[in-house]
């Protein structure tokens, strides 16, 4: 009796040791894999690296300095202009620029618009990185940084605040995008079963992510609803949230167009044949979407303008600036997109995309710092400091570095695994049931032989 018990004990112990060793070997293998993957691929001394590395180092230095010294060291935010470029540019512009992720998720996963499938992973990756880095910009902008978790852990829940909604949606949307992108990571690590599980969550994550995006894209505009007496009347409108949402669609598509132009140039070795073959077609379809979305945005902008009855303000320098934004950077690129797709000219489309991005930058900066407190004299206005600009550029550069690292390693651009075509089934009258995969032909042949 004793002997058996001791033996089982022993075998259990051995089993455990064996399992641990097994796990250890797996982990060790994974670590080696990671270390190997962490090494840079390709040349190190490229112009991109030479320019961005000093910016990242300087930006990191400034960021740490200002984290311990307070906001007045390094930033020009003031009592008059509490929000500088970390919020006014990184967040306000970065979020609509990352909007391509939810627009493409909508087209590909919800509407089953398979044409855009090859670029959806890269776009979701870009969107996720954008959000992760804009969260870091928010962190840098906070005056009491270590309280950043308070709205999440419930110290306290300010549920009547639009910013509360935006904060939660940022967090949840990052999670949704992580789920959307996770099958790519699983594929890279080589965990096929995990990939299947994660892939099954994609649709849910997309639907959830689109609802969240709708709300926080518009919520960023909603933040300015209470700045009624501070925004120039040409920009203030009850419909700011709707305008912010509507403009995030062409903004996102334009960023995708620019992103695909750049990645095609630098990462074509990571792209499958079929994608490169369909590249022009995808480009044209993106332009079509952008032309339409941009025109819808223009139309809404005109509606809001008429609704606010602010005609008198048009005959002033502010009016000229407003018209430049609405016509020069919204209506014109909309038509340019149209011409570009009609002539199938990628250069026109690219130009229109850059104009649209410029238009979004001008629009969001108007809300956050240019038309915001427009009555404050020039000498007291906010201009970003050198440190702020460096930190912003460093954030963007780091994001591009990580994007490059991921695209060079993970299957971002390969076409996802295509499902087998459904088997054909034919009815065999001799037998009284159906057979699949041409089985009936073989059967008939055999019967004849018999």
């Amino acid at each position, binding site marked *: 009796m004793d002997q058996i018990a001791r033996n089982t004990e022993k075998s259990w112990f051995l089993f455990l040791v064996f399992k641990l060793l097994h796990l250890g070997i797996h982990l060790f293998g994974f670590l080696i894999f990671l270390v190997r993957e962490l090494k840079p691929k390709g040349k190190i001394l490229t112009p991109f690296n030479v320019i961005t590395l000093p910016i990242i180092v300087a930006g990191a230095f400034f960021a740490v300095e200002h984290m311990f010294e307070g906001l007045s060291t390094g930033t020009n935010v003031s009592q008059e202009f509490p*929000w500088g470029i970390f919020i006014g540019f990184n967040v306000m512009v970065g979020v609509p620029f990352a909007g391509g992720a939810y627009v493409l998720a909508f087209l590909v996963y919800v509407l089953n618009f398979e044409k855009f499938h090859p670029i959806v992973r890269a776009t979701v990756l870009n969107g996720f990185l954008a959000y992760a880095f804009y969260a870091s910009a928010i962190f840098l902008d906070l*005056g009491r940084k270590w309280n950043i978790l308070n709205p999440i852990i419930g110290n306290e829940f300010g549920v009547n605040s639009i910013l509360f909604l935006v904060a939660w949606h940022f967090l949840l949307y990052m999670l949704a995008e992580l789920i959307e992108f996770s099958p790519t990571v699983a594929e890279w690590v080589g965990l096929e079963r995990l990939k299947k599980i994660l892939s099954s969550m994609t649709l849910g994550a997309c639907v959830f992510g689109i609802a969240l995006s709708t709300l926080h894209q518009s919520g960023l505009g909603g*933040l300015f609803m209470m*700045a009624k007496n501070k925004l120039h009347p040409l920009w203030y409108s009850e419909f700011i*949230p709707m305008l912010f949402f509507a403009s995030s669609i062409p903004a996102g598509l334009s960023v995708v167009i620019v992103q695909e132009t750049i990645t095609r140039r630098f990462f074509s070795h990571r792209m499958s044949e079929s994608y490169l073959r369909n590249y022009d077609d995808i480009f044209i379809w993106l332009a079509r979407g952008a032309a339409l979305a941009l025109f819808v945005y223009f139309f809404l902008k005109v509606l809001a303008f008429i609704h606010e009855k602010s005609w008198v303000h048009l005959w002033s320098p502010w009016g000229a600036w407003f018209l430049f934004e609405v016509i020069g950077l919204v209506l014109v690129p909309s038509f340019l997109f149209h011409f570009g797709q009609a002539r199938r000219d990628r250069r026109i489309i690219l130009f229109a995309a850059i104009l649209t991005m410029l238009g979004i930058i001008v629009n969001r900066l108007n809300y956050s710092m240019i038309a915001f407190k427009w009555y404050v004299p020039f000498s007291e206005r906010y201009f970003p400091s050198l440190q702020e600009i460096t930190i912003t550029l460093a954030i963007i550069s780091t994001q591009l570095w990580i994007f490059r690292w991921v695209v060079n390693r993970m299957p971002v651009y390969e076409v996802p695994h295509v499902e087998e075509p459904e088997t054909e089934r034919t009815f065999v009258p001799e037998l009284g049931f159906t057979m699949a995969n041409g089985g009936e032909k073989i059967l008939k042949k055999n019967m004849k032989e018999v």
Partner: protein
Amino acid sequence: MKRREFLKVALSTLSALSISGLSTKKAMGFYACPKEFHAVLVDTTRCIGCRSCEVACADSHGLLIPDPEDKTVFKTLRKTDEKRLTVVNRFETEKGEVYVKTQCMHCCQPACVAACLVKAMKKREEGPVTWSENCMGCRYCMVSCPFDMPKFEYDKAFGRIVKCDMCYGRIIKGKVPACVEACPSEALTFGTRRDILNEAKRRIYTKPDTYIPYIYGEKEVAGTGFLYISSVPFEKIGLPTNLGFKAYPEFTVPFLYSVPVILILWPAFLLGMHYATKEGRK
């Protein structure tokens, strides 16, 4: 006839019930909360610009005490900041020099409270709008406040939002705010908002030649806790008159109401579209 009578009686009973129900509810709400919003009346015709309020305020909040003898400060229009919670400015008007004290207005429905995502800004039952330590320093209250009153200590790594708190600590002990106590010319009067409004009206009615018939803050942004009366129009003494009478938090209400609607209906609609297009393609 009988039926008609019955209907009449039934309807009138119903309406009476509902009205009485409403009124008792209101009355109960009122009596259940014995505290009332407090307010301060700033009578700009009585202010002599001695800046005793600035000194008392700095003293009671542990800030740098200004020199009240220094009259050069009136040369420029000063604003409150993180080191002074209240300032007195001088305005040249057709009725001579007018001194105006500015500080947080303690709105009845404050924009900063609606803006705060961690409820660090609170509207107290006694009337003051106060700040607490769980603040993240996002400074959205500064963006939202129509009077630009919250200020931030930018030079500290863990700065605070600073603004007048109507001496909340003193009020809950039954004392009046430090500035009111210090005022030698009775330009400041403290009391419940209801009494203060009556007092302001009384002054205007008894001296119609002195005052313009308007109480600033009675209706501005749906009511404020600091009320101003003056002998000259308010835009001439630096008070913003373009704010409107709507409570600022109400500007965010349409958006906030759309949130649950979109969060519930949008996913259902999207999933519907997904299955519709899926069927169509196969």
